[in-house]
Structures are given as C-alpha cells and as structure tokens.
C-alpha cells in the first residue's frame, strides 16, 4: 500500500513538473522593457521589466507576447525578450590575450592585437586590394569607452526633462 502511494506521488509530481514547462520563461534583453495593456506600442503601460528579469509567456500574437510579470499581465514586444537570459558582454580580447603567440607584436589597440592573434592583422588580411583599409581609425573608435549606465542616464535626462 505504501509502495503504491509512493509511486502514485511520484507520478503526480512528474506530471506537474513536466506540465509546468508549458508556461515558458522569457528573459528581458533590453535595459527596460515596457509591458503594455494591449499588443500595441501606443497602449498604456501596466509595468516595466528590466534587463535580466523573467516574464512568463502566456500567449503569442504577431510580434507580441502576453506575459505574466509579478502580479500583472500585459503585452511585451518580442524584440525585447529571448528564451535565454541576456548574455554578458562578449569580447574578442580575453581569449586572444591568453593565446597570444610570442611572435605577435603588441599593438596600440588591444583589438588589433586580438585580431593579429587570430592571423587577421591588416597586413596579412590584405590579400585583396579591392578596398582601402583604415585600422587606425577603427582603433580610435574602439578607444572611446562610455559606460552603458551613463548613456542610458544621458538619454533619460534628455527625454524626461
């Protein structure tokens, strides 16, 4: 009797566990993601989720998901969510820094060094002379570092003024 009860409990638990997969989690990718009353950008905002938070997918309609977020229900653009949590920054630097061959010359920009480590430095890549290349200017672009939090604050200061 005890054995039967145990097995029945396991059966019930398994069914419950697997059935919970139907309401999938979606993860917010953008810094902020408005959850709206209707599947339309112009509709009223019922909540705002932030990057990394999970919302429960309830329904799908065109480019919108109906989701559950905390105690609210609303619509979120599929452009702002993904079935995986947001990835951390991907850099071409760390791995290359470790694998730098001794023969690779250190260059002003770590990016150029990283590219060189993969054999993609401008001198070796110029197998085609079809287009002129300017890596110095690319390095200038890459040298400017602005924190994303600062950029978001900059935007919000401008639009909320």
């Amino acid at each position, binding site marked *: 009797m005890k054995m039967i009860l145990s097995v029945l409990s396991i059966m019930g638990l398994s069914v419950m566990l697997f059935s919970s*997969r139907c309401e999938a989690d979606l993860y917010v990718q953008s810094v902020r993601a408005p959850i709206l009353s209707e599947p339309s950008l112009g509709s009223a905002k019922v909540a705002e989720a932030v990057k990394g938070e999970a919302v429960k997918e309830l329904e799908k309609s065109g480019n919108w998901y109906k989701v559950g977020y905390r105690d609210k229900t609303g619509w979120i653009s599929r452009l702002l969510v993904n079935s995986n949590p947001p990835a951390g920054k991907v850099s071409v630097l760390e791995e290359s820094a470790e694998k730098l061959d001794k023969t690779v010359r250190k260059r002003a920009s770590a990016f150029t060094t990283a590219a060189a480590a993969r054999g993609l430095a401008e001198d070796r890549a110029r197998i085609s002379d079809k287009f002129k290349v300017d890596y110095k200017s690319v390095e200038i672009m890459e040298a400017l570092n602005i924190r994303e939090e600062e950029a978001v604050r900059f935007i919000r200061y*401008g639009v909320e003024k």
Partner: protein
Amino acid sequence: MRELIFNKRLLLFLICITSLIVVLVNGAMSDSAAVEQGFRQRLDQVANAESTAEDVKAEILFGRQLAARILGRYQLYKDDKLTRYINLVGKGVAQYSNRPELVFRFAVLDTEIVNAFAAPGGYIFVTKGALKAMDNESELAAVLAHEIAHVAERHIVKELKIKGSDDSSTAGMARVIGGKFDAVRVVFTQMVDNAVELLMEKGLKKQDEFDADRIGTFTIAGAGYDPKALYVYLKKISTPDKDTNIITGTHPSFEDRLSKLELELKENNLTDKIQPVVKERFNENIKIK
C-alpha cells in the same frame, strides 16, 4: 518471497505507467508548444536563437574588418565633443534593443552624402551630411536605431548566406575566422569584400530596410523619443534641395519606406503619441562646418 516478487513486479509496472503518462502528457502539451517553438525560432531570426559567444566573437571580428573598409573609403571625421555625443545617444538607444552582449560604437564619416552604415558586431557610422540634415536628437536617435536594428537582426551576416553545419549563419563565419590556412583567409577576405559591396553599392534586401525602419522606430519610442522622428527625417531628406547629395541606391525608394512607416505608426497607435524631440541639446552638440 512471492509477495516480494509481486511487489517488485507491481513497482516495475507502476514505473512504466508513470513514464508513459509523463511522456504522453509532455508530448500532448508540447505539440502545440513545439509548433510554437518552431515559429518562434523562425521569427527570432538566426542569431537570437541560441547564439554562442564564439558566434558573436566571429561577428565582431568580421564587422571590424568591414568597419576598416568603410573608414578606408570615407575618412573619420575627428571631433571629440561631437563623437562623444553621438556615442552617448547611440549607446543609450542600443540599450533599448536586444543585443546586450555587444558593445556598440559610433563614428562620424567625413562626407557630405546623406547616409549611415552598420557593420556587424556594433560598428555604426553616420555621415556629416546626414547630421546636417537632422533637426533634433530624436532624429539622430532614429537614424542610429535603424542602423542598430541592422546589427541586432544580423542582416548582413544572413544576407551573405554564411551557413555552418548547424545551419547557424555565424557558425560558418566562426569556422572561417578560426581557420589556420591561407585558403581560409582568402575566403574570409572575399566575405568581407562582398559585405562592403552589399553595404556601399548594392544595398541590403528591401525587407531588411523596412524591418530596420520599423524596429528603429519602436526602439526610439521605447527609449522615450518622438516615435515619428524617423518618418519626419526620411520625409525631409526625400525632398532634397540642390545642395544635398543623396544616395538612395542602397535603400528602397523613400515613397515605399514612408508609406510602410506611416502604416506601422498608425497600427501601433503611435501617430499621435507625444514624446520629446530633444532639440536644445542637439543644437549644443552638433556644430558642423
């Protein structure tokens, strides 16, 4: 002893039944979910679905090569204050899109043509000519958001039809970049050259441009800017005076873009949505001779 054997048989029987029920329940519930998942994967474009860090690294390195060629054709316009401003707006807007793993970088090209370009991996360019045609920060945000959308949706990568064995667009690129032979380098350089032609001469697919218009508009609306900004800017540059030099060869006709955008604004109740254009700060920062 017989009781023990009986219990074991019963246990085995119940375990089998459990497994069967679990499989059936899961299967029944996931039939529609599987269709849904398939639809979502098609809709999510190649990259958003399960892209690895290696895929993204390949994208960045490829985009960097393309960026060097864009800058080889049009020189970098060097103005620290202006460049910083463009990067603050561009990076800020990029946070309202869906590529949190990328570092977006922005530069101004020293040319009077009215255009903007995006290289994979987040290298974005806007011309002096385009900046001169803008009236406020929301228009700048809109143009940058359009380019960010090209990167977010991996338009160039997909259009180059680089396929790996797992059918991921960037897996093939990762293999090429990771390759150790000169023959592979030739393939890679050819890919980059093709991308330059696509960007500078032929233009991306019309649908990709329409999508970038739509996604760019939604992005700036989400960031708090005037949702009509891209529409207003495109309408403005579609009626050039004799001093502007507009290249439309790389984009669909303005008429098509404007009519589609007008429809999107209407369908999303954004036509009458009032949000700031941010003019003052734009005028303080954009001073181009």
